[in-house]
């Protein structure tokens, strides 16, 4: 696919040169969606949403790209090549908040509209950040998911991605900030599975061994939650330890079926890709300004209100359980 794109990009460039830039009005607005890594279901779904937005807007071409592994170096290479191709806007989910700043600043100097979505970039490196939900709401949601099934309180543990993941750390901090509202619930440990299935599995087994009275494992990462659910099944702890957190319905359907997980939450990645594309379009083609306090429309998702750090929240996370898993597992 990327070869097709490159050829297409080359032809478009040649065509532009031939036309001497006279045909600007008919050029499609080219919006690049730079994801953490190719092959992640969540971002594939975001791409579907971006496609939907492109269709709705009409004159928009989506370039879905990213490195093959979740590294900042890989994203820098990808962004450099997008700058060379002269795209109109870049929407990026960053593997590192600071490492991407210089290359994105260069992109903005060349007149490319840059926004970050999902996992943010430091303020200097983007015009605005589209958070899938507000960090505070996610922090509350993940502890609420555990608390829903622990009316008498109990012990919970966190299984995160890497110790340096921007979004996981923010959510955990927000969760800890509201722990006062859940007096019976005690967070006994935070462990890191590095978003690898085997390491997350091992960490989950370790949690159940270290804390025999553990009632719930909260994994705010899609790899970790699946691995933890499998570990709970293998350790015969279904019914004693409830795995919850953030996951994808298609990946968690088995865990809901086996009872290892009662419920989990996620925003809708299709909506996220859709909103990111709408915002990128507004900034690059409609002259919208990303300033603190600005309100920018994003199609069917309503409007994005920017705070002092030019960050806006899209919507509330959505809870999935046995009642609706069948409906959503086919979608993403």
């Amino acid at each position, binding site marked *: 696919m990327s070869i097709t794109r490159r050829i297409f990009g080359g032809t478009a460039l040649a065509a532009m040169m031939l036309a001497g830039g006279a045909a600007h009005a008919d050029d499609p607005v080219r919006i690049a969606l730079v994801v953490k890594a190719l*092959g992640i279901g969540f971002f*594939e779904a975001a791409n579907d949403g971006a496609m939907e937005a492109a269709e709705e807007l009409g004159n928009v071409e989506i370039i879905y790209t990213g490195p093959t592994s979740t590294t900042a170096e890989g994203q820098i290479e990808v962004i450099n090549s997008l700058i060379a191709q002269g795209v109109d806007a870049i929407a990026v989910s960053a593997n590192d908040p600071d490492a991407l700043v210089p290359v994105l600043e260069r992109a903005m100097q060349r007149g490319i509209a840059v926004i970050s979505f999902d996992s943010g970039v430091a303020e200097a490196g983007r015009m605005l950040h589209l958070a899938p939900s507000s960090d505070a709401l996610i922090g509350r949601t993940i502890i609420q998911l555990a608390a829903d099934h622990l009316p008498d309180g109990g012990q919970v543990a966190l299984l995160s991605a890497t*110790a340096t993941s921007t979004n996981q750390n923010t959510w955990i901090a927000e969760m800890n900030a509201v722990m006062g509202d859940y007096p019976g619930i005690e967070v006994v440990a935070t462990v890191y599975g590095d978003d690898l299935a085997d390491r997350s599995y091992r960490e989950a*087994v370790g949690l159940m061994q*270290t804390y025999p009275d553990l009632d719930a494992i909260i994994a705010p990462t899609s790899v970790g939650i*699946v691995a933890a659910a499998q570990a709970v099944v293998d350790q015969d702890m279904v019914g004693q330890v409830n795995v919850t957190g953030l996951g994808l319905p298609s990946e968690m359907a*088995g865990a809901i079926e086996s009872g290892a997980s009662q419920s989990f939450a996620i925003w809708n990645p299709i909506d996220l890709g859709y909103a990111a594309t709408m915002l990128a379009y507004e900034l690059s083609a409609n002259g919208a300004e990303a300033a603190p306090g600005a309100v920018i429309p994003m199609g069917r998702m309503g409007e994005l209100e920017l705070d002092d750090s030019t960050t806006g929240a899209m919507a509330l996370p959505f809870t999935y359980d046995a009642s609706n898993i069948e409906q959503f597992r086919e979608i993403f």
Partner: protein
Amino acid sequence: MTRLLKSREALLVGVIVALLALIASRFPAFIQPGNLVDVLTDTSPLIILALGQAVVILTRCIDLSVASNLALTGMVCAMLNVAFPGLPIPVILVVALALGAVLGAFNGILVWKLSIPPIVVTLGTLTIYRGIIFVISDGQWVNAHEMSAAFTGFPRTDILGLPVLAWIAILTTVALLVMVARTPLGRAFYAVGGNPNAAVYTGLNVGRTQFWAFVLSGTLSGLCGYLWVARYSVAYVDIARGFELEVVAACVIGGIAIAGGAGTIMGAVLGALFLGIIKNALPVVGISPFWQLAISGAAIVIAVAFNARAGRRQGRIILKRAEQEAQA
């Protein structure tokens, strides 16, 4: 030399026992038989891959594609299971072994016939195999609920108190021990790695021996591919990414000389067990995950330092003799 290698294994056993005692002092439940079985089971893929890698390193090569081979075979097995849920497990196992062997043979052919350095060949196939997974799966995951119960249940089945996964590791170890000690091919691995020139004069085909080492390593990676995917009940592009380095580390810690020709099968198994115990113990003794990396890294450096010291001592003795003779 033999004495030295024997002491390496004795040393490793000592280190492992000391490590277990240390862990038990902080978390007694770790050395309960049930948990030790869990640790052995968890370490089984690493043991199996380390066995194949040990043979490859013995022949002066290195196979960096094992983890990608594992991931590709695992994805193929998972997709086969989704497409044909009724396919019996023995068929899946045969497919896994055969595909792994083919992927290993591809490495072997490039090393043998085109004489490309193994590190370059397998660095290339590492990326190629990962890429193929993305192409065949289209980036999609194969999830637990899509796999059949027999598919995910096989490595977990208990036989005489041990899961099948652990039994496979034990049987593979025994098979490799016999093969390396008792078959012409097994001896050839040492001869080719120890001194390729001398091996040619004794009538051994160096390239072909290395080819078979790669086939063996590939076959074992393929086997692990199915076992891995079944154990974690999930298959996606990134499974076992970076695992090849752990496998090489297990071999180096186990005393397999990276220059080839020296080291034992038991050494590789002990090296894998050492890493496996550390990986399983660190979560329960409550040490920061960063220490895990630091400890594994320190173990590798210490092991290499041991190897280097052994080699240097030999050199000095020769020089001293030459010196003495010159003086006399």
